[in-house]
């Protein structure tokens, strides 16, 4: 929910309740006030009538508003106020009247004097109050809405500017600055804090990146020395079997570390987007060429290869990354296959699907693209292949999915 929406909704709820309460109170106060006024007026009427009778003995009658008559017995002399219903000829229905009556002695005669007047009808009153409060309420809401909108446009403007600038934030661009300035203390502080945070993040990131690259590079040199020394050692004549096996074992593991650091370096470079030069690449051609690289391994495992590749499929990307993606996916399909299994490659204009037979995954598919995640501990590969594939896809904004269907492991890349 947007801020403006939220405040508007709150204003609406609070002022709506307040207005409802106000209307009810208003109604009761008004009706009490009117009743009081009516009583006062009727008393006044009775006083006037009494005065007229005293003066000239005439009995004024104006039904139903004024009624006077002589009565025989004197009962009581106090005022009596009642509410009554009287039929009205115009409205053709009974309507409520307020009546104040008095039995009094004037010039030794007993008189019954009554003054009446119509109430304000409750329905009418209610209607009027509802309309008035409703109108005021709407007026208030409309003005609140405009005030809010103006405020959020003006006051919140630096906030939205900051937000937009933050969206553009990238680790790769040092010297990130927020340009918006505000008179408001809160926003100034927000910007200062954000700037501090981003500067720190960028410098941390840069040093981590430098460290990873340097570390990988620095590891390569001693490994190259170890590798060359071992290759020299292998040449010694009269090497015994167990000695040769020891040397070979060290050699194989040294190569593995070397491959691992290279792969990590590659991952870091992909993550840092250090492959900027893109060109149009024919994926179909690339795939057909890379398949050749695996011919011998396919033969060795007696795999059946089904190719369904469109003749041309041009994609704008970095050549090295495209190559890396294809090799990693394909080598996985070969590696995690079973003897006499199969590999299907399907390339369409906007997607690449590589599926292969193999044991079902012993792990959740969601972990498949994690670094160092191995499904099978017997393989020497460090489990970085799919992590590289995932990084390449992320960088190119391609979507990658894995499914296990019809006993086939399927990886689909949508370009």
């Amino acid at each position, binding site marked *: 929910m947007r801020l403006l929406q939220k405040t508007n909704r709150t204003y609406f709820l609070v002022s709506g309740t307040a207005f409802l309460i106000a209307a009810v109170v208003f109604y009761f106060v008004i009706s009490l006030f009117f009743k009081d006024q009516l009583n006062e007026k009727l008393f006044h009427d009775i006083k006037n009538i009494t005065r007229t009778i005293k003066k000239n003995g005439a009995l004024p009658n104006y039904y139903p508003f004024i009624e006077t008559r002589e009565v025989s017995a004197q009962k009581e002399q106090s005022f009596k106020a009642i509410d009554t219903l009287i039929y009205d000829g115009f409205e053709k229905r009974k309507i409520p009247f307020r009546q104040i009556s008095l039995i009094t002695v004037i010039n030794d005669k007993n008189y019954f004097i009554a003054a009446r007047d119509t109430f304000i009808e409750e329905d009418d009153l209610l209607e009027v109050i509802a309309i008035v409060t409703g109108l005021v309420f709407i007026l208030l809401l409309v003005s609140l809405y405009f005030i809010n909108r103006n405020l959020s446009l003006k006051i919140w403007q630096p906030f939205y500017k900051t937000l937009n600038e933050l969206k553009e934030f990238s680790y790769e661009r040092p010297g990130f600055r927020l340009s918006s300035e505000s008179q408001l203390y809160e926003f100034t502080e927000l910007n200062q804090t954000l700037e501090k945070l981003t500067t720190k993040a960028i410098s941390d990131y840069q040093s981590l990146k430098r460290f990873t690259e340097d570390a990988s590079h620095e590891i*390569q*040199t001693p490994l*190259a020395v170890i*590798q060359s*020394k071992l*290759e020299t050692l292998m040449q010694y004549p009269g090497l015994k079997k167990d000695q040769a096996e020891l040397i070979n074992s060290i050699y194989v593991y040294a190569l593995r570390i070397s491959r691992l650091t290279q792969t990590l*370096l590659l991952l870091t470079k992909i993550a840092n987007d250090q492959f900027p030069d893109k060109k149009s690449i024919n994926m179909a051609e690339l795939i057909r060429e890379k398949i050749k*690289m695996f011919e011998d391994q396919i033969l060795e495992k007696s795999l059946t290869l089904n190719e369904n590749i469109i003749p041309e499929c041009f994609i704008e990307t970095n050549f090295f990354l495209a190559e890396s993606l294809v090799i990693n996916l394909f080598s996985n399909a070969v590696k995690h296959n079973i003897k006499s299994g199969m590999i299907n490659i399907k390339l369409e204009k906007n997607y690449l699907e590589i599926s292969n037979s193999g044991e079902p995954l012993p792990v959740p598919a969601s972990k498949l693209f994690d670094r160092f995640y191995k499904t099978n501990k017997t393989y020497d590969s460090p489990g970085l292949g799919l992590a590289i594939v995932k990084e390449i896809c992320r960088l190119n904004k391609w979507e990658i999915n894995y499914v296990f269907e019809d006993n086939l492991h399927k990886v689909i890349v949508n370009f």
Partner: protein
Amino acid sequence: MKILIIEDEKELVGSIKNFLEKEGFLCETSFSYFEAEDSLSAYNYDIIILDLTLPGGDGLDLIKLIKERNRQAGLLIVSAKNSLDDKVRGLDMGADDYITKPFHLAELNSRIRSLARRQHFDGSNELIFNEIKINTDSNEVFVNGTMLDLTKKEFDILLYFIVNRNKVITRESIAEHVWGDNISYADNFDFIYSHIKNIRKKIEINSGRNYLHNIYGIGYKFSER
């Protein structure tokens, strides 16, 4: 043949020098940019091995100097893996070949030999090992005068063996030489074996001798014994 090795890692230089000297090359070494400058100004070399990351200066700048002073020299640059830019720039500036670090000594030897053949220092496009003769221009192999019917990969493997004759060659090195760097993604190198078997068979039919020996799980050695 005189080779200049420009590389700052002394231990690595030691191994390379040791290996190449046994191959009959004359080796000199420079451990820094300035040493390299001195050597290049003073002497002529047939082949120069240049590591691009040097203390004291950019290896790429040395290429200019080499092209001025040692125009005839074959230039092999060594670059760290993954630094594609250096590779491309080096070749653009006139390097003849490149090799990525870490490399197999047998691979280095193979590159140098190929460079030497291309520069025609050996004066010949033929490699001879006893009754086996390889023509590197036409990619043909003769055993006792009979041409062998080899596949492209078999030819590459055999050439690699003969260039590195009498040396133990690891399976990893063969795989990377023939199938390229990316083959290291493979889970095993069993697929090499069938090619080796074929080569062995094809030579044996014509010469009656087996030169390809297994070396205790490390790899192979191409030698008389």
